[in-house]
């Protein structure tokens, strides 16, 4: 695959804060890439540099073999010349224009003929399901429909690159799921490259071909397929960002693994991972990957039980350690102060620096 969008050594500072620190990234043509990270990590700044709203302090950005931003050459193609589609978090549809005029705006700017504008706008409205409300004004429409206008407006001129800045976070959860699906459908139809900024890991998983998990300074923590990001988080940061997590300190004795200070509770049945002498790695596991049994397992006491609808959220005390467990509500229920055994599966190991230790 050839790279479509390339970021090279991109750095952006706001005063003394380094918002984006030497970012290198290549996005393939037609790929859907998510930038995933906590708010303030620099993902939106990265997107705004791509769009041309922010200058670079170092590095350059290319589309194909064409430079669009370069600190070195002090060259910045202005946003209006980049031919990118962009969808904003707060919709940014123009309240004084009808739905049709909102969507037709980029085409009018490009000086297309009237029939062409009508044809392309109608097409974009059809694909986003807005044809029936084309003469309405945005204030008469729901949040989901406003975001559809923004989508229709950004695809109306057939851009090859589409930038989406948390486009679904102002919508209610149901609408979010519908729109995820629709964005994916639009991409299949138009085959544009998507760069999608979000802090919602489920959204990133559902949409992307590739996820880049970022920490503050837009430092890349993992750059991988959604499945790998979920199944093999590259470090502790990614593991805890992707879902609920337990990080458990362990000690080793006689070639077995025990939770720290709880040897009497029994061993964790797993192979001992490679480690430096005297410094066992940290065990990480998801609350949903732990089974609770009446007898056997690592023994502990239920200290708290909370019903969350489908699942029950338990806190189990094992020696000095508290373990979080989530189980389906239909499985046998334990009460607070009950004895139980924990059976761990899908274990991950991280060393002192937080890096992943391959499971033996």
């Amino acid at each position, binding site marked *: 695959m050839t790279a479509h969008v390339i970021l090279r050594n991109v750095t952006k500072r706001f005063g003394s804060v380094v918002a984006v620190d030497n970012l290198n990234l290549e996005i393939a043509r037609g790929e859907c890439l998510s930038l995933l990270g906590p708010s303030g990590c620099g993902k939106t700044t990265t997107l705004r540099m791509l*769009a041309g709203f922010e200058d670079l302090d170092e590095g350059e950005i290319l589309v194909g073999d064409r430079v669009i931003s370069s600190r070195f050459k002090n060259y910045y193609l202005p946003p209006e010349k980049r031919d990118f589609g962009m969808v904003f978090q707060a919709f940014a549809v123009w309240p004084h224009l009808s739905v049709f005029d909102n969507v037709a705006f980029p085409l009018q700017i490009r000086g297309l003929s009237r029939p062409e504008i009508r044809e392309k706008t109608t097409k974009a409205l059809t694909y986003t399901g807005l044809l029936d409300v084309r003469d309405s004004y945005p204030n008469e429409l729901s949040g989901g429909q406003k975001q559809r206008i923004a989508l229709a407006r950004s695809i109306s001129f057939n851009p090859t690159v589409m930038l989406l800045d948390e486009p679904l976070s102002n919508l209610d959860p149901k609408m979010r799921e519908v729109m995820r699906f629709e964005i994916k459908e639009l991409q299949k139809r138009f085959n544009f490259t998507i760069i999608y900024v979000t802090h919602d890991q489920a959204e990133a998983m559902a949409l992307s071909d590739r996820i880049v998990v970022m920490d503050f300074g837009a430092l890349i923590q993992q750059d991988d397929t959604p499945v790998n990001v979920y199944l093999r988080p590259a470090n502790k940061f990614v593991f805890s960002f992707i879902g609920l997590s337990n990080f458990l300190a362990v000690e080793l004795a006689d070639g077995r693994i025990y939770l720290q200070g709880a040897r009497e509770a029994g061993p964790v049945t797993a192979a001992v991972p490679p480690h430096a002498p005297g410094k066992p790695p940290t065990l990480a596991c998801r609350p949903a990957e732990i089974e609770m049994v009446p007898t056997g397992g690592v023994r502990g006491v239920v200290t708290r039980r909370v019903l969350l609808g489908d699942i029950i959220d338990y806190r189990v005390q094992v020696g000095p350690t508290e373990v979080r467990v989530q189980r389906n509500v239909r499985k046998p229920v334990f009460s607070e102060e009950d004895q139980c055994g924990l059976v761990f599966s899908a274990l991950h190991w991280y060393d002192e620096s937080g890096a992943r230790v391959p499971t033996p």
Partner: protein
Amino acid sequence: MTGTDRKFGIAEILLLFSVLVLVIVVAVPILLIFWNAVVVDGGLNIAGIVKVLSEPDVFQAVVNSLVIAGAVTVVSTVLGVFFAWLVSRTDLPFKETMKLLFLVPFMLPSFIGAIAWKMLLSPRAGLVNKWFMGLFGLEQPLFNIYSLGGIIAVESMYLFPFVFIQVSGALERMDPTLEESARISGAGLLTITRRVTLPLMLPSIAAGALLVALYSLAHFGVPAVLGTEAAIFNIPTLIYQKIYASGGRFEAIRAGTILSSILVTAAALILYAQNLILTAGRFQVIAGKSVRPMLLKLRGLKYPLLSLSVLYIAITVLLPTVTIFLVALLRTYGLSFSLENMTLHNITYILFTMKLTKDAIWNSFYLSLAAALVTMLVGTLISYVIVKMRVRGKFLLEFLGLLPFSVPGTVIALGVILMWSGKFGVNLYNTAWIIFVAYIARYMAFALKSTSAALEQVGDSLEEAARACGATHWQAMKDVVLPLIKPGMMAAFFLIFLPALRELTTSVLLYGPTTRTIGVAIYALNEDGETVYAAALSAVALFIIIVGHWVIKRITGTTKIGGAS
């Protein structure tokens, strides 16, 4: 149980009191004006109205008012929008300072400005004109300030901040992604300004422009100072002229009521139009998250445009102010500004010797203080009933609360004369009380505006939480609501005290032999040709105003910090 089924409680008493205040202070005087304009000896007086309106001087005054208001609105809007755009959408240097400077004309009294411009640009004696004629050996002055153009120019200088405030506020609150999405759609800055920014700003621009129209239509000071010499009258100055010339004869007052009715009707129409625009145009353009707005890089135009702005401030604010202070120090008007011609005598004379000015300063001071205090307190109460209380008949108060906004100062003065000169058993004519009552009516709008804004900021749940903790209605008010709206009440106090201190329009129709105010005294001294004393008293007034604004800034600055913690 007590209190559950009583028909007449504290809420009803407060409502009744509020309604009563607004009826007596504002509503009845206005009704009296309409009544006297239309009814004579128990019959309709249509013929009389037609006769008054067809008098050439009345017709000309109506035309002048419209021409002046129209032109001032256009000029102020252009200036206000341009400067607002410059300070909020470009990378102009020293933007924050420039923004404050553009608001300075707001705090300066326009009639003092007019006096200064008369000193600078009167056709014969104007300093600039004399200098210009001397320089080129000409007989013709550079510019005659005694003209419609002069009145329009000077009024615009003082009224453009209405547009500036509205538009710069709206530009700053606007969601920047609305412009960014246009940009990424391929539009350049000019196209964005034309097709996105300006249409979205239109309601704010219109609101500011209508405010200017409203003020200009009913403006007395500038046309009184600059127009009388050239026999140019607008509606307010003609009302004054008629009443003053006739010594308060009832025929003159009747003509005044007819002209006032026109003013009130026009003002009501303007406010109605403004309301329509603001509700129809209430687009949701407020930013979701704080992103820096796009700033136009001025590049080569940066310093030329900064110079233009500084020059504008220097000519419209600094030059007249300095002129007033310098003339205030002159031994005799007409001497050159050299050190040996300068003296502090004028200042000490008007402060300590001259009875007219001593009285005026004292009168203005206690009248403004009393009016500000009373209006602020009553205004807070009325706002509280309107904003916070659930009580039947509130709509009546809401309607009455709109009245003070639409009544020009001249009209208030006339209404107060009709109401309080003995016809209804109380005669306050020629006393300070009549000015006091007029000030309350004139400034009630200011009090209502800032206290209701403050009260709207206090969520109902805060008061309810206090009640839930066991506080009585009164305790909740005293310990929760009042501390939270204190900054709003302080603002209301100063918003009334400072303008009242230099009030002219209303006082000039109401003053008696011993109840001249600062504004009236300056106006009278200027009319009588006592130019240096007029300048000296103006300088004192300007000094008090500047110190007052500095004090406000200190107070509101510290309360803001206290409120944020």
